[in-house]
């Protein structure tokens, strides 16, 4: 089972869109978990941003027994020390990932709010970050959610459905076998 939890406030409609995309992309049951409190120590005053690594540490402590993976969703603008910002971060081949909605919102870029656009972007980013937890790395196919797309036009060119190559890698991945085994075990 893939768990999805808001870290702090997050719009329910966007969370739903992310859950639907995750279910379709990974063919695993997805479950909404209770919202998690924001880790205050993640805030870096010098950058006025939030450390995504601290978010991941917090999420790791919150993985429920029945979940193979946990995705946190935040409105905060995230960063890692070497980069000016990130849309999200994941443990490569690990259990947890986080997606920030801050820069996915059109209004962050001076455009009028567009809930549908936000939901579509958030869905693709959710599959991207959770894909990393299944061991997938960046893909060259610009339409694949695993592609590295930072600029908005590229970001909007992404779909939430992994390309054939990534889907094949996903099927053969050790992480996917484990997740399936865990889900089967939970059902029994």
């Amino acid at each position, binding site marked *: 089972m893939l768990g999805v939890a808001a870290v702090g406030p997050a719009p329910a409609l966007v969370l739903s869109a992310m859950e639907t995309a995750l279910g379709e992309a990974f063919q695993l049951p997805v479950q909404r978990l209770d919202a998690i409190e924001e880790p205050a120590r993640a805030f870096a005053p010098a950058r006025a941003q939030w450390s995504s690594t601290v978010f991941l540490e917090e999420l790791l402590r919150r993985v429920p027994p029945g979940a193979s993976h946990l995705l946190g969703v935040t409105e905060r603008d995230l960063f890692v020390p070497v*980069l000016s910002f990130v849309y999200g971060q994941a443990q490569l081949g690990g259990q947890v990932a986080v997606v920030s909605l801050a820069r996915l919102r059109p209004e962050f870029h001076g455009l009028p709010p567009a809930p549908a656009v936000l939901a579509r972007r958030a869905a693709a980013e959710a599959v991207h970050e959770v894909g990393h937890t299944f061991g997938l790395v960046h893909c060259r196919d610009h339409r694949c959610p695993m592609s*590295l797309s930072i*600029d908005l036009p590229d970001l909007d060119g992404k779909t939430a459905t992994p390309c054939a190559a990534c889907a094949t890698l996903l099927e053969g991945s050790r992480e996917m076998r484990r997740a399936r085994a865990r889900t089967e075990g939970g059902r029994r």
Partner: protein
Amino acid sequence: MRARWHILVVDDEEAMTESLAAWLREDGYTVDTASSGREAIEKARGREYAIYFVDLKMPGGLDGIETMIEIRKLQTEASVIVITAYATVDTAITAMKEGAQEYVVKPCHPQEISLLVERIIRVKNLERENAILRRKLTRQYRFHDLVSKNPRMAEIFDLVREVARQRSTVLVQGESGTGKELVARAIHYSGERGERPFVAVSCAALAETLLESELFGYEKGSFTGAVAQRKGKFELADGGTLFLDEIGDISAKLQADLVRVLQERRFFRVGGTNEVAVDVRVIAATHRDLAADVREGRFRDDLYYRLNVISIRIPPLRERREDVPLLAQEFLDRLSHELGRAASGVSEEALRILMDYDWPGNVRELENAVERALVTCKTGVLGAEDFAFLARPGAGSPGLSLPAGLTLQALEREYITATLRRTQGNIKAAAEALGIDRSTLYEKVKRYDITR
């Protein structure tokens, strides 16, 4: 496919190292980390990394620039990207001067790192592909240590394969530096004798008496200093091949001795009374026109005919100019490795100079020229300026033939025209070759109305 490229991230701040490493791993690369310059150098000794991200400021021990210099000593082809939080123009210039390929200010835009690495890896992939293709191409034109795509050389390779199976004496003729000994070695190692010794003697290098004892050996007490019996080259080459270089330079007495050995395959050591029998294949070589020497009585005809059972004449390099690029690249690959210089190719302009040059010293001169250019080369590609010495008078270019009645001005015009032709119209190289500055050369070109 990216996982085969290894990247090392060097920074004393763990948060920086880990976040950059994690980002690069998401891009699919295999990433190691080091928390100091020393640790980075240790890791570089154990593995070849395609790219090093090195933080500029690291407290204690080596800073980023020093670390980069040490890494580049170990791995000349490594790409180093310097990262810093304190960007100034000076530090950027210093880093680039010392060999950094890129300079990144942290925190940087996420795509910047990924695009930078992708660009470097794309170039490395092309370089690797290029090296493989070049090796394939060289293999196609390689026969033992000989490299050529010239049809006459291809015939020689066929002949070598043919004669390698026999024991007949071979006479290899060609100008100095054409690779006569390499042909002799190719004959030896292509045949059944390849497992046995190949012994080379330069007949021109030794005085007559020394050469005699060198070839046939001597008995103890046969002359002052002969304190013990010593085997000569003929005996040492028993079962194998004896290569007699510069055979045209031996004395009349030695010519007579050789006739006998070639005929009977037995000889006496100097001062000896017992005959020694040997099974030796003789390959002789000379840069002289032996047939002319025979006609003029300087070389015994019976020896000439015994040596010249199979004749191989190697064309000079100027008659197989198509081999120049191939040979230049071959020497460049080998010498850059031997000399620890990172030059990957020869520019088109430089190749034109090499193709136009007459190579009086043949392949050996080309090898020396590539070595000299490599030593002075400041970029990764040998350029026309690195071969400027080839255009200098006295550096091996053929002598001028001067018609009578030429005025000094006409001579100057002719010489400038010839030099410009040799440098493919390159004013800088021509001025350097002529020993004048560029403005003077421009002036003369204009005055004499020379078309470049």
